[in-house]
């Protein structure tokens, strides 16, 4: 194959076309028999050759176009970037305005989101978008922000975060089904329970650091899950707890009864109201998490968390009680997971240990790391990308027209995920938003790129 000759001043188009066509030819030779032809046995055990020409054509087209784009756009751009000497480059003004307005703008969007979806798709059509995308993503945004306190700010790698989520979910599930307490009483209680568990776990293990802490928290997550499976009398084992009461709006139920929301408001009965109500509820809960985190970062305890992440020994020599500081971070992170858990239980109406596997913890940690440790906006973006991305893959059924009926995009979710994460870690090793906003200024604000800063030790 022809060598890719990347010239300094613009790519050579005709050479690129030739090269791309040549690649296409090679691909035809390779994939023609492999992809284009398919043999099957019919009932009489005869081999029947089938042609899959559409699939073959699309594979080759992808290769030709991909090769062409690589030659004309990607490689020249990469070479140019390498050539450009980039000294400590301050963020450009465009970027600064973007980052300043991004958070408020997306907040407004989030508040208008159900209205937009309903006006576009009607109440029935909005269900999927509000529930699967909106609520689902916001739960993970909240979990990400909660874990961000522990991992991003205090620097304690917690691989068992889902345990606190489970504590919250089961607190609500058990107390509401057995005693009939309302969600509004149980929400704070679930948070407190989870925080207590956080302290109980934290107390013995917070002397550990780094990898050791990660392993112990991982084990803790598994212990909680196994207890939920095996303590059948209380938790009904792996079959879980079902018919968990729904959330009411100050006593107004969202059902078709005469006292239900729809009848009271004189609206046609629809399950969309409840979903929209849940959407705003989780949005507010997530924003509460964000608000508390942002406030705490400016208080002594928040500053101590960040200092702790940077250097524990220095913290101690400055008179900071590191044990208490870690415990507060752990308990607070656990509390928000508890809130999210009780919301989750109420929304699903069903909880089982299935929902609290290590995979969940891993996804939440991935969201925090991918977003850029400690950055609120970054974590939210990562949650949208990870959870929204997974949900979007379910929508790829149209690919069946290309790849045949046996193609199931769901099966490729984890593969695509893995590739995407590897890619992000190569190009943005510090996450989506790597700059850290200082909490105190004398002069004007100045964001400094995270790439300028080397890791702390200790």
């Amino acid at each position, binding site marked *: 194959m022809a060598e890719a000759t990347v010239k300094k001043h613009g790519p050579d188009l005709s050479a690129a076309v030739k090269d791309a066509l040549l690649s296409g030819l090679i691909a035809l030779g390779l994939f023609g028999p492999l992809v284009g032809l398919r043999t099957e046995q019919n009932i009489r055990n005869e081999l029947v050759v089938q042609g899959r020409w559409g699939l073959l054509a699309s594979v080759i087209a992808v290769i030709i176009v991909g090769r062409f784009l690589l030659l004309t756009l990607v490689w020249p751009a990469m070479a140019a970037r390498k050539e450009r000497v980039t000294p400590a480059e301050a963020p450009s003004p465009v970027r600064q305005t973007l980052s300043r307005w991004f958070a408020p703008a997306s907040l407004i969007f989030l508040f208008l989101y159900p209205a937009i979806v309903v006006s576009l798709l009607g109440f029935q059509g909005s269900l999927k978008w509000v529930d699967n995308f909106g609520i689902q993503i916001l739960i993970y945004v909240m979990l990400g922000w909660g874990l961000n306190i522990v991992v991003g700010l205090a620097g304690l790698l917690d691989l068992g975060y889902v345990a606190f989520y489970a504590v919250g979910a089961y607190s609500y599930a058990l107390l509401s089904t057995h005693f009939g307490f309302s969600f509004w009483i149980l929400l704070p209680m679930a948070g407190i329970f989870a925080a207590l568990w956080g302290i109980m776990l934290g107390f013995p293990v917070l002397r550990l650091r780094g990898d050791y802490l990660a392993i112990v928290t991982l084990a803790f997550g598994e212990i909680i899950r196994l207890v939920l499976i095996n303590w059948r009398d209380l938790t009904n084992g792996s079959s879980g707890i079902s018919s968990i009461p729904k959330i009411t709006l100050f006593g107004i139920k969202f059902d078709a009864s005469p006292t239900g929301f729809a009848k009271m408001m004189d609206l046609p009965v629809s399950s969309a109201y409840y979903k929209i109500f849940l959407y705003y509820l989780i949005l507010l809960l997530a924003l509460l998490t964000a608000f508390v985190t942002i406030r705490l970062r400016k208080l*002594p305890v928040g*500053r*101590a968390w*960040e*200092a702790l*992440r*940077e*250097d524990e*020994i*220095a*913290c*101690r*020599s*400055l*008179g*900071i*009680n*590191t044990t208490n500081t870690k415990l507060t971070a752990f308990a607070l992170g656990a509390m928000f997971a508890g809130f999210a858990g009780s919301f989750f239980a109420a929304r699903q109406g069903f909880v089982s240990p299935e929902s609290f596997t290590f995979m969940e913890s891993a996804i939440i940690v991935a969201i925090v790391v991918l977003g850029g440790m400690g950055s609120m906006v970054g974590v939210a973006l990562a949650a949208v990308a990870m959870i929204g991305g997974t949900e979007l893959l379910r929508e790829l059924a149209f690919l069946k027209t290309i790849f045949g009926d046996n193609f199931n995009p769901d099966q490729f979710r984890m593969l695509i995920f893995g590739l995407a994460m590897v890619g992000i870690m190569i190009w943005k090793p510090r996450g989506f938003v790597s700059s*850290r906003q*200082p*909490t*105190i*200024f*004398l*002069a004007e604000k*100045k964001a*400094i790129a*995270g790439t*300028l*800063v*080397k*890791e*702390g030790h*200790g």
Partner: protein
Amino acid sequence: MTGQNGTPLLSVQGAKTYYGKIIALKGVDVDVHKGEIVTLIGANGAGKSTLMMTICGNPRAREGRIFFEGRDITEMPTHEIARLRIAQSPEGRRIFPRMTVLENLQMGAALDKLAHFDEDVERMFTLFPRLKERIGQRGGTLSGGEQQMLAIARALMARPKLLMLDEPSLGLAPLIVKQIFDVIGELNRTEGLTVFLVEQNAYHALKLAHRGYVLVNGVVTMSGTGKELLQKPEIRAAYLEGGAH
């Protein structure tokens, strides 16, 4: 200046520290009086940093006692020792790399809940004008000398009764070392700041200090005023000949 009468501010009495089974300090006695600069010199591995860390309670002395203002602090947790206003600038500086210069200083003032923060920050910027230029910059992006200045300034933000410095000259150009030592000397003269200085750079340290101790293999082998020690032939031979003057 060196009020040697009365109880010393800091008194280490027969401290023995072990790392596992290995003994690092074999019964060390050191006194630091109020208003003094006391230096501890010695070669690599003599136990200088261990002594300083033992005073801070990490690792703890297995035998012997450590008193601060007459109070036994041997068994106290590190952060509580720091709250007695023993400020430490640890070896390797250990500033917070992702936090800005100002935030680093803020951490130093955490004990007083920032009661006199603005005033103290101004004072630090007078002492170290270089830090003022770097005020919004991340600690990790500072040069070695600036990081050392920041580490000392951060320790001073706690308004310490005793400032302990572990090898402030480590890895710094002679000119910067001189600047830093000048600031320490000035703080001692004008404000009566008590300083316990652990150094390899024996010449500068002994010139600055009122008194000095020489630590060899976990034992104090010599002590005296800075001038006396500078004159001793053994010291000249072991620590000064060929060293940076």
